[in-house]
Each structure stands twice: as structure tokens, then as C-alpha cells.
């Protein structure tokens, strides 16, 4: 048994033709997050602390669609959202519509721990952030050149766009295989507690005020005493199929093991729409996705670890690894 951790930096149409200068910083961040998480788990930190610290790290990395580096709304602004759930107590916290808070996931945790509510959004969430004295920056801090370019291209193409397209002339080869973004982390600590956390900037060119699956418990994030799950992909599908909740529901009601439950849920959602990371109470890890790729990493106490983007050559058709 022992501790286990899995994290993702978004699933979607990640072209294998992405140049090294795009891939390397992402992989480096995944490695760094894994190292941080493993050190924390070995030191006996709780799963809740670990998922928060990993997601903070991913939010701070400008190459992922969360925190700094979030994709832009149709107004050219950033609206960030996140949620966190403690599998032990099943407490949860969520935030949406943040524009100045450096770490949305930490604010979500404060909502969980410091308010009688679960979910705060927009001006109410920003006001709460100031009450709590969390780190805030001018909205321009979160906006990157890359995302300005992505928005411009999307508006030209007049449709909501994929996240990981190179920000130059190339038109993405597939059409609706294109929702991605979001970062997330799930963990089980050495006491057997489970936790999940997810954070995002949303989708490129979204209508201001649009909320996706990430802050919705049971959609983008879920944890209970059986498992912890964080999802990425097409937000509307993740909501409709209550993806993270369903992994747990299959384990509970059908007695499936984690990998099978995760594979089944992913297979049940339209192709190209979803990826997830999950850990179970027995220390199993799953990183299942039906998108072309998913930035991901995992490690378990027995020494196993993995970092990847695309399915390995010998993985099954679902991209399960």
C-alpha cells in the first residue's frame, strides 16, 4: 500500500509535432511537481496539503492553463476557477471568476476551511480573498503573450480553440477534438487519506462568466474514502457525465477496481473529450484519457514513477498507462 500521487497538466489535442521548446518546460514542471510531492509524502504531509502544493506549483507555471498562463476570455481577461476535496471528511471548496488571486486552489481550500459555504465566485470570491489576505496581483500578471496570440487566432477562426496548438499559422487538424486545459492532482498519504484538487483558466475565447467543470464537485474533482479523481478535457462533457463522481460510483456500486472504473468512465464519454488522474484507497493509480494526449505524472511509494504526454507505444487503445 503506502502513499501514491498522480497529477496532470491538461489533456487534449497535443500535437506530437510540438517543438521541444514548448514541451521541455512542461515536462520539467511535471518532474519538479512530482519531486515536490514525493518529498512531501515521504515527510508525512497530508494528502490535502500535497494536492494543494502541487496545484499551486502548476498554477505558477506559465505554460499550463491555470493561474499564470490561463487562457483568455473573449474580453481578453482571465477568469480562474478551482476546487479541492478531502476524501476523508468529504469537505470541499470551490471558487470561480477569479482575476487577481495568484493561487485559486488555495482560495478554494480557504472557502472549505474558513466559511460556512462550499463555493464562492466572482466579486464575492475576490472580496473573500482580500479578507483572507491571500496573494493577489494585477490581472495583467496572469496574461501571457502566448495566450494573447491564442485568443487572436481563435477569434479569427471564430471558434473556441484547443489549448496546445502552436501559436502560429497552423490550423489544428481536428475540429472538436480540441478542448483541453486545466491542471490537477490526486494523492493518498501514508495515513490513507485521499484528496483531489483541480484548477484552470477555462477555455480560450470563453464568454466572460462561463463556468466549466473544474469547480463542480463530481465533475472536475471528487474524493471520498475510496478514491480521489481530477478530470480535464471538454468541460461540458465532464459535467454531463459527472466524470469524477462516476469513477467512485462504479467502484462503490459495482465493486470495480480503480483502473477498470476509470477506463470505463473514460470510454463512456465521447472520444477526445476527457482525461483524468485517480488514486484509490489501496494505492492504485490511474491516468486514463481518450484525448490524443495528456500531460501527466505519477509516483507510488514502491518506487514507481512516470512522466508522459502521449500514449506509450505498448499502452492500450484508451491511452491508459
Amino acid at each position: 500500500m503506502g502513499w501514491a500521487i498522480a497529477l496532470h497538466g491538461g489533456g487534449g489535442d497535443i500535437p506530437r509535432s510540438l517543438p521541444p521548446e514548448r514541451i521541455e518546460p512542461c515536462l520539467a514542471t511535471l518532474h519538479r511537481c512530482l519531486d515536490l510531492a514525493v518529498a512531501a509524502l515521504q515527510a508525512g504531509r497530508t494528502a490535502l496539503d500535497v494536492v494543494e502544493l502541487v496545484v499551486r506549483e502548476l498554477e505558477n507555471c506559465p505554460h499550463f492553463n491555470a493561474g499564470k498562463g490561463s487562457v483568455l476570455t473573449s474580453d481578453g481577461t482571465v477568469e480562474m476557477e478551482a476546487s479541492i476535496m478531502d476524501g476523508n471528511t468529504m469537505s470541499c471548496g470551490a471558487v470561480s471568476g477569479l482575476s487577481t488571486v495568484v493561487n485559486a486552489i488555495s482560495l478554494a481550500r480557504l472557502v472549505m476551511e474558513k466559511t460556512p459555504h462550499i463555493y464562492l465566485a466572482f466579486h464575492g470570491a475576490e472580496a473573500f480573498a482580500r479578507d483572507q489576505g491571500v496573494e493577489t496581483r494585477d490581472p495583467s500578471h496572469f496574461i501571457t503573450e502566448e495566450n494573447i496570440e491564442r485568443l487572436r487566432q481563435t477569434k479569427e477562426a471564430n471558434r473556441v480553440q484547443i489549448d496546445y496548438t502552436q501559436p502560429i499559422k497552423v490550423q489544428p487538424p481536428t475540429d472538436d477534438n480540441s478542448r483541453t486545459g486545466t491542471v490537477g492532482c490526486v494523492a493518498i498519504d501514508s495515513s490513507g487519506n485521499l484528496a483531489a484538487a483541480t484548477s484552470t483558466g477555462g477555455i480560450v475565447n470563453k464568454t466572460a462568466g462561463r463556468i466549466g467543470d473544474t469547480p463542480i464537485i463530481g465533475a472536475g474533482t471528487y474524493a471520498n474514502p475510496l478514491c480521489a479523481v481530477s478530470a480535464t478535457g471538454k468541460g461540458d462533457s465532464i459535467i454531463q457525465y459527472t466524470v469524477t463522481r462516476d469513477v467512485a460510483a462504479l467502484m462503490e456500486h459495482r465493486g470495480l477496481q480503480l483502473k477498470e472504473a476509470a477506463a470505463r468512465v473514460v470510454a463512456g464519454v465521447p472520444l477526445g473529450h476527457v482525461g483524468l488522474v485517480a488514486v484509490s484507497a489501496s494505492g492504485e493509480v490511474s491516468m486514463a484519457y481518450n484525448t490524443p494526449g495528456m500531460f501527466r505524472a505519477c509516483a507510488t511509494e514502491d518506487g514507481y514513477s512516470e512522466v508522459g504526454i502521449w500514449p506509450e507505444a505498448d499502452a492500450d487503445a484508451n491511452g491508459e498507462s
Partner: protein
Amino acid sequence: MGRWAIAIHGGAGVDPNLPEQRQEEAKRVLARCLQLGVDLLRAGSSALDVVEAVVRELETDPCFNSGRGSALTRAGTVEMEASIMDGRGRRCGAVSGVSTVRNPVSLARRVMEKSPHSYLAFAGAEDFARDQGLEVVDNSYFITDENVGMLKLAKEANTILFDYRVPLSGADTCALAAAASDNANGMVMNGLPISIYAPETVGCAVVDSNGFTAAATSTGGLMNKMTGRIGDSPLIGAGTYACGLCAVSCTGEGEAIIRSTLARDVAAVMEYKGLPLQEAVDFCVKERLDEGFAGLIAVSGTGEVAYGFNCTGMFRGCATEDGFMEVGIWE
């Protein structure tokens, strides 16, 4: 052809000392809304049209906590939210932070049908409403004198719940004393004594004569909530869910409903455990809520109705094609 069925609710967590006159008024409103749904179903309307029409009616009547008559935020304003789900194809729409749109459930439906997204909130939702030409009114339209009074009591009660040394005085003494004794009796919902708590939310679940389901939920939310607070009502899987097997709408303590993904769980239990509707409802109410208080209404794809709640009362009504029709409040 399937058999149609409809269930509606006006909120769970009812003050056992609610005056008889208020109870009768509530039952009249429930009966009227139920009849509206029944008439539409008999005329062959779709489940989606029926849930929207019925919830619009519940929102418009100030009797319940949604639309006009919504509970107030701690700032004394109204922030409404709603969601709707089409069991045929799982499309869904939701809105939060709505402050001027007359019928939030209709805005939720427009989000589902006319926007590229599933959920819009606050300024974005308000802008979209205007783009779509939906009826908007001043925020004051939604505010009733009764709720202004209730907000005041709620603010005082929140003090009472944390500090019993606060002296009671003035005309509100009876209510506050009742509140304190409610707390002593343990009848508290969402941190408020039951005499002050405004049962949150209205909802409707329907299966039409083609066997298609839909569900919708609408609310003003928790009395004295922080501005920006979102509850379970706009969250698909928590307050609202519909699929081929069933349609569900929940009400009660938002946190409990969200953590337990209550609406989705009724469907999941039917799907993965093979339980029939009433058993699935009972299972979820009994096993999923822990110390939380909530209720729900549901219909199955085969024309059954069911409801369940673990708190003091739920305003509800249900009707099936074979002529069964009832409204109720208590067990």
C-alpha cells in the same frame, strides 16, 4: 408510448410551527403549479417545456425561495441561480449570480440551447440575458418585506448561535427566543434555526409521454449568504440531474447535497445497483447525507414518482398519468 409523471417541490426544511394559513397558501401554490404541469403533459408537451413552465410559475409566486421571494444575501440583495437538464442527450444549462432576470430557469435553458457553454454566472449571465432579450427587472422586484424581516432575524440568529449571552429584547424577542430554543432542540438547517431558515429552492422533475425526462431547480439560496456564494441548485449532479433512467431535483443544505452529489447518486444507484426509483431515493436520503439535511423529488423514465427527505418537512407535489395527484408538506 410511455406514461407521464411529474414531481415538484418548494423546498425542504419547513418550520414545524409554520402557521396554518401559510401552510394552506403553500399547498395552494403547489397545487396550482402541479396542475399547470399536468395540463401541459396531457396536451403532449415535452418534459423540458414542462419543467421550465412549472419552475417559472414557482419562481414568479413569492411564496417560495426562488425568483420573487428569494432569500437575501447578507448585503440585502438577491442573487439567484438555477439549472436545467434534458435527460434526452444530457444537455444542461445553469446560471448563478442572477440579479435582474425575472425567470432564472429560462435563462438557464437559454444557456443550454443558445450559448456554446453550460454554465454562466454573474455579469456574464446578466449580459447574456440581455443579448437574448429575456425579461429583466430591477433587483428590488425580487425582494419581499417578509424576507427583509427574515434577513434581520437571520443576522441576529447567527449571533445567537455563537453567543448565548446576547440579551434578547424588543419586538423580535419571541422569534429570537424560538430561534434559541430551536437551536437547543437541534432543529437547525444551514446554520439557521428552523423558524428563520427559508427552505431553499423550487424544482420540478418530469417524464413525458414519450418517456423523455427533464429536471430543473431554481433558488435564491441561503438567507444571509455571503455575496458570491453558490449552492447546489445550479450544479449538475448535485441539485439537478436527468438521464434516461430518472430526473431528480434536490433541496436543503447545499453543502450536504454537493458533497453527496445527491441528484446524480439517485441515478447512479439505479444504474449501477439496479434499484428501482423509490428504493434509490430512500437509499440516497438515508445513506448519503450523513448529518446533512435535505430532500429530493424524482421521476423515473417509466412513469413513477418518488420523494424523500430527512428533515422537518418538504413542500412537494406529484402526479402520475393514472390520475394520482397529491401535495404535501410533512411526512
